[in-house]
């Protein structure tokens, strides 16, 4: 199991929409290499024919009628109030395709 390289950390930061300074990249690379080095021991545990533990609750197909309950918890106005810029019933955001100063 290889541990992390700085270029991988930069790539992951881009994927997870996280700005990291060069210092933070270096620190994260060092911290995580150490941690993952320690964690790699689980690779030696025999898990042939073992299912992943995907079912934390043991419940299956919990469903309900597809009926709306408007304002059950709060109104849509309540939710929109938590946004910096709204226009009518929409959250206004910077353009997806606009020119930006960073890549």
């Amino acid at each position, binding site marked *: 199991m290889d541990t992390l390289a700085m270029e991988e950390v930069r790539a*992951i930061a881009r994927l997870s929409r996280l*700005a990291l300074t060069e210092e933070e990249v270096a620190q994260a690379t060092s911290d995580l290499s150490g941690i993952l080095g320690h964690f790699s021991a689980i690779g030696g545990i025999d898990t042939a024919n073992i299912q992943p533990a995907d079912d934390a609750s043991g419940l299956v197909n919990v469903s309900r009628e597809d009926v709306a309950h408007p304002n059950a918890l709060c109104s849509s106005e309540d939710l929109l109030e938590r946004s910096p810029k709204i226009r009518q019933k929409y959250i206004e955001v910077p353009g997806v395709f606009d020119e930006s100063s960073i890549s």
Partner: protein
Amino acid sequence: MKTPYTIQESRDAITAWEPYIHAFLETFEEPPASEGGVLAGKPVAIKDNILTKAGHTTAGSKILERFQSPYNATVVEKLLHAGAAIVGKTNPDEFAMGSSTEYSAFGVTKNPWDISRVAGGSSGGSAAAVASGEAWGALGTDTGGSVRHPASLCSVVGVKPTYGRVSRHGLISYGSSLDQAGPIARTVKDAALLLEIIAGQDPYDATSSSLSVGQYSKACDKDIAGMKVGVPEEFFAEGIHPEVEHLIRAAIESLKDQGAIVIPISLPLTSAAIPVYYLIAKAEASTNLARYDGLRYGKIDTHDASLLEHYVHVRGKGFGPEVKRAIVMGTYALSAGYVDEWYKQASKVRTLIRREYENAFKAVDIITGPVTPEPAFLIGSKMLDPLQMYLADALTVPVNLAGIPAMSVPCGFTSERLPVGLQIIAPHFQEERMFAVASAYEKQHEWNAAFPPLPH
């Protein structure tokens, strides 16, 4: 110093203690409360990663600094319905990631027993509030030990219910297959009462169980003669503080006085639990934290030209170092090319850990041991190496991985007057057993009669 039963008593204690311990991020002048109910106005504190309409819910993070929730978490609704007076929101590690509240964006919570030391985490604020007499009871959340660890370090009772016993609706998610809200209180019976109030199926949480809520208060009076108590040798591995070991072994011995039968057992996968837990928890967290975009949970001002720039900047500035580390680790563990060897392998070992506990419970009724290898550590002492911080959870994380219930009950103090808690672990949905043993121990020893002196 006494247990506060009224809002005024709570207010007085908050005035006296907050300058020293910083347990609260916010206190409410007019605590939201309802009439009547079994709690009848008792002051309760809520960890700040649980949504309340009152005040703010920040999860200890700058990215949610201005967030005010439009609705209450189910557990909060249930407490209000039972007559609790919610006096404030307590300090957590940011997004519940940590074991000391040192990762909170708003300062550390200090241990009321020694303010140069941590209160534990991530529910450090809640534990410190109860230990100091600021609150009668509190809610925390436990993903890898975050209720039991601070309870142990602060000499109060802390409970992590079975996964699915308590609704997660309104909890700010960290690890969705691991998170549970749990009560913190001064006595086992108070904790049992709080669990009865907050437990139960919730239509808003599809992972909540339809099993009827147990009679936890009644279970506190049950006789434990004949109960088989398993003691895993791996819980006393190297690294355990000798005084912790001494106090825990003495506590287990004393259970024999009440007729319990102590049986040594072995849980060989204990040493695998930290890697398995952190890989799964951080992977789940990286997904759960993807929603924080500076657009929906509070007005964060940015002046970015593009949406991508906005996301990257807001998240870069809004998240602290441990959360960023978590997102990077979690994303890595899930990424193509690595997911099989890290995340899937961890998940398979998790199945093995669950089986290990299931098998152990065929031979014993209860498993017991320390909550954590050492008592409250000095503030700052574990900040240089994140792995050292993770190891504080070595004995609590297996419980979350297996989904079983566990609690911490005070079992004494070290020679430096630092609290130690005894961990009591039960099979799925057998919380009654856990409360019976904890209560029997508490009646014999009454460590909870001790209050920390106000620092000067």
